[in-house]
């Protein structure tokens, strides 16, 4: 008898062999030698993870217990592949275009990227898969047990925990071995394909041995089958239909099936091969089930476990080699299932539960991609261990006593709850997130309550009271007789209620709820996937596409560049003319070129649209929108800059005009200064020469000429004083000497100062004594200067026979105004505009001023926070000065 240790060693060798296969496949994939990895045969064989330890061992047991019913488990998937391949094709197409990673991703993506839905499906999948993993643990443990008993080493039997740990370790190393966290696992797929061959080979070998080695040939075995109970058992129509539906649903919805069927799919056309090859594989797997069962029942002592006939029958005949082969077949079935299921589940758990949480708690961590990758890997590894350990927990709780097939069906029913949502999502645009959530929740709860919890055994997770009398003692809530309907077997009972209520809730809630825009968009993308993306392998289609690509490229790159690019490529390909074949290499090149102009996402979407290999996914659209936003922002910035430039140009122009104006003003000013200086100097020079030359000058003449010289010198001095004063005022260099004073005092001082000389007697001044009593805080000297100037102007320019100046004072709030109005002819309207300018000449007559007085007044009033204006509509010349009674420093 073979020793247990030897068996373990054989297992390890086998595992090492699988590693080698995976390693070689992965290295080939990395080198781009994916031709043989991508054969449809490998794809078909990878689908065989549908056949697990349950199928390998359990089918025989199932047949021994329930006759031909086991066939339903094969019929469901076969019917899907043969009759419903278009559903699978749609899933594959959507999976590829939307880059889906799991069944949870599919559902969440369809219903507007709902993370809540993804979490729900993930939890459902984990719980639904748990019994299944327990099943694999059980089958491996049982098979070890068989050998242990046979060799009398029963006490050394490795417990299920070691099997669980071993499987978890195996999966962690296998599924997350390298740091590549892409969802494709070429190595794993290849290893699974090898395992598929091993398990088929083992089962067929056992079958052949049983039929020809024990049964005595085909005819004899068929006779034996006819005589046995198995052949006589009736086919129960309802149960058969239910089981077929269940297995078909499971085939479509199992996370591990989605992984190999959709995620690992390289080419849609593989489905065509798989649609006949996979049913063929299933037929081969099921072919010898009945003979083995019949011969086993016949051969083995009563009470032996029919689940293990595949092992025990060869052992009983002393065929150890065959038994070991059979053991390896079962081991393959179990390990491949656990690996893929754990990978699929860990992807879901890490993508939909761990990563969102981790990202939420680390706001800044996501910027370092390596960081995230490590977190993803860690999350996946922990998820794998967690999933396998959950399976172990279930195994412990259920006591490992149930028939393998029964456990498998519990799992199937749980996972099948996803079916209405998946089909609805794929074919009905009206399906909404709320509907999906309602259907899943109801289906899941019914399954949990009526099948999963009771399945671990009475009184473990659900009390016997509840089982017998219903939840809360309500008889219609008995787990195995909902709504008082009794007499159905528990599985059919659950299947009926959960799927029907699930579907009803899904449709009802979809109808009464409204989809979000993203949901609607995704719904349209999913349901109309074949309108969005045409042919399957159209990357290699004809010249018509090249033309379209050319037209697009011309629009983006410009005609000349696009033509150059295309003819270069055509030349390289050796194609005559300017249009190259749209080979993947050329398309990549074109995409790179285009992305330089329009951004990567847009380029990808454009080429994808034309070549039709993939539809534009929502991510693509989002990326395009992002790029457009960036472009818009960029162009907005450009526009801003150009606005700024033209603003700057305008400012420059204005500054230039101002400079020109200032330059002209400066010329005029210099000219004026020159005139004002030269005129008195002319008199001074002329008369000083006259005096110097002597001659016959009278005393009176001498005196007169000397005083002219004197007056003109004073005039020059005053002119220079005024100029300097104005310059200081204009430059703002003047410092004000602020004091409290009375307006009356200031006016008194100004009047007496202005009228001091004898000429002043001619001007009569009328004051407004009643209003002059205004306390004022300002620079009194400067204000007085303005007053003096205005009075002096009246004295000089008032043409009236009896010149008169009226000084009126008024207040408005914190402001005081003083009007100086004489009784002359006033100032002509055109002159009114210029009187405050420098050197402005108001009248024809010369009055000895340089024309700077009012300019100085205006400057002073500005400094004092007020102003000076010409008052229109008065009798004579009229000036108003206004200023705040209290000049605050801030107003300066």
């Amino acid at each position: 008898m073979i020793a247990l240790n030897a068996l373990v060693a054989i297992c390890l060798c086998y595992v090492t062999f699988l590693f080698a296969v995976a390693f070689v496949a992965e290295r080939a994939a990395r080198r781009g030698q994916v031709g043989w990895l991508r054969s449809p045969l490998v794809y078909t064989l990878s689908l065989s993870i549908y056949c697990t330890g349950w199928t390998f061992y359990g089918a025989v047991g199932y047949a021994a217990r329930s006759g031909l019913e086991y066939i339903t488990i094969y019929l469901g998937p076969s019917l899907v592949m043969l009759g419903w391949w278009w559903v699978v094709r749609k899933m594959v197409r959507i999976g590829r275009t939307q880059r889906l990673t799991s069944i949870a991703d599919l559902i969440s993506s369809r219903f507007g990227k709902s993370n809540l839905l993804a979490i729900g499906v993930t939890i459902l999948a984990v719980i639904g898969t748990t019994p299944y993993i327990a099943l694999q643990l059980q089958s491996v443990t049982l098979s070890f047990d068989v050998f242990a008993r046979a060799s009398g080493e029963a006490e050394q039997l490795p417990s299920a925990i070691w099997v669980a740990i071993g499987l978890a370790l195996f999966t962690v190393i296998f599924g997350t071995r390298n740091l590549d966290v892409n969802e494709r696992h070429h190595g794993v797929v290849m290893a699974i394909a090898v395992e598929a061959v091993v398990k088929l080979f083992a089962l067929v070998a056992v079958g052949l041995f049983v039929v020809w080695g024990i049964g005595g040939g085909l005819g004899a075995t068929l006779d034996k089958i006819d005589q046995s109970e198995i052949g006589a058992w009736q086919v129960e129509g309802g149960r058969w239909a239910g089981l077929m539906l269940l297995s078909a649903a499971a085939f479509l919805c199992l996370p591990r099936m989605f992984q190999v069927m959709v995620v690992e799919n390289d080419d849609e056309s593989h489905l065509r091969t798989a649609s006949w090859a996979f049913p063929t594989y299933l037929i081969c797997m099921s072919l010898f089930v009945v003979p083995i069962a019949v011969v086993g029942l016949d051969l083995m002592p009563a009470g032996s476990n029919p689940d293990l006939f595949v092992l025990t029958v060869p052992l009983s005949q002393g065929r150890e080699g065959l038994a070991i082969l059979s053991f390896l077949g079962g081991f393959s079935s179990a390990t491949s299932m656990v690996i893929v299921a754990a990978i699929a589940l860990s992807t879901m758990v890490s993508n939909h539960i761990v990563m969102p949480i981790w990202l939420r708690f680390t706001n800044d961590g996501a910027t370092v991609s390596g960081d995230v990758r490590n977190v993803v890997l860690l999350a996946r590894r922990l998820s794998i261990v967690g999933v396998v350990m959950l399976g172990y927990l279930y195994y412990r709780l259920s006591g490992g006593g149930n028939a393998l097939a029964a456990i498998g069906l519990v799992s199937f029913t749980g996972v099948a709850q996803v079916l209405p949502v998946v089909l609805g999502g794929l074919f009905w645009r009206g399906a909404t997130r709320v509907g999906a959530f309602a259907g899943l929740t109801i289906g899941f709860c019914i399954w949990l309550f009526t099948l999963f919890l009771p399945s671990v055994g009475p009184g473990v997770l659900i009390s016997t009271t509840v089982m017998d009398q219903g939840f809360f003692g309500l008889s219609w809530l008995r787990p195995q007789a909902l709504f008082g309907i009794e007499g159905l077997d528990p599985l059919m009972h659950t299947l009926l209620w959960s799927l029907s209520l699930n579907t009803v809730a899904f449709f009802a809630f979809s109808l009464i709820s409204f989809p979000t825009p993203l949901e609607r968009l995704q719904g349209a993308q999913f349901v109309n996937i074949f309108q969005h993306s045409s042919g399957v392998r159209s990357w290699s289609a004809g010249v018509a596409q090249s033309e379209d690509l050319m037209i697009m490229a011309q629009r983006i790159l410009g005609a000349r560049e696009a033509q150059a690019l295309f003819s270069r490529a055509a030349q390289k390909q050796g194609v005559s003319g300017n249009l190259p074949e749209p080979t993947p290499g050329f398309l990549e090149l074109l995409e790179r070129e285009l992305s330089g102009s329009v951004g990567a996402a847009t380029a990808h979407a454009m080429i994808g649209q034309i070549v039709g290999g993939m539809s534009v996914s929502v991510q693509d659209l989002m990326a395009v929108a992002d790029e457009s936003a960036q472009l818009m922002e960029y162009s907005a910035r450009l526009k801003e800059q150009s606005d700024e430039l033209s603003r700057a140009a305008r400012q420059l122009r204005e500054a230039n005009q101002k400079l020109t104006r200032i330059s002209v003003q400066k010329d005029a000013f210099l000219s004026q200064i020159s005139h004002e200086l030269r005129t008195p100097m002319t008199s001074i020079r002329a008369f000083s020469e006259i005096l110097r030359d002597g001659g016959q000058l009278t005393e009176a003449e001498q005196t007169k000429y000397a005083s002219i010289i004197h007056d003109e010198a004073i005039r020059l001095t005053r002119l220079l004083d005024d100029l300097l004063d104005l310059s200081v005022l204009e430059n703002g260099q003047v410092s004000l000497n602020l004091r409290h004073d009375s307006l009356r005092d200031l006016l008194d001082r100004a009047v007496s100062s202005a009228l001091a000389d004898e000429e002043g007697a001619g001007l009569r001044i009328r004051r407004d004594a009643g209003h002059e009593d205004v306390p004022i805080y300002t620079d009194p000297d400067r204000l007085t200067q303005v007053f003096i100037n205005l009075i002096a102007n009246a004295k000089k320019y008032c043409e009236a026979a009896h010149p008169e100046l009226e000084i009126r004072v008024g207040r408005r709030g914190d402001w005081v105004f003083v009007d100086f109005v004489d009784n002359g002819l006033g100032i002509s309207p055109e002159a009114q505009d210029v009187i405050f300018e420098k050197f402005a000449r108001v009248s024809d007559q010369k009055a000895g001023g340089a024309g700077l007085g009012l300019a100085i007044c205006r400057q002073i009033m500005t400094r004092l926070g007020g102003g000076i204006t010409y008052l229109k509509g008065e009798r004579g010349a009229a000036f108003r000065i206004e200023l705040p009674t209290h000049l605050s420093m801030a107003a300066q």
Partner: protein
Amino acid sequence: MGKRVLLIEDEPNIIEAISFILSRDGWTVETHANGHDAVDVVQGNLPDVLILDVMLPGKSGYDILRELRESHGRSELPVLMLTARGQSKDRDLAERAGVNRFMTKPFSNAEMLDAVRDLSEA
């Protein structure tokens, strides 16, 4: 009775000075102090020499000269122009208007006398 000079100038002190200088040399000096009617004054009583200031109230010396030369055909009238704005463009303007002699203020008395004598003899 010597030759007559008409002085059109608005600065009283300058009028006084030029009058004194020329009178002393035997000229008859007549004066006029604004630009408005200067052309009429000249037309009404043609002098031997016209002394014309540029900056005059009412009408500039350039305009008066141009009017005399062009509108009234007084191309032979000797004209001495005085300006206090001693920029070169002022001289250009004066020459274009048809001036015989151009002097910038201040000037020396001898210069003035020489200029008037020259103009009267030419």
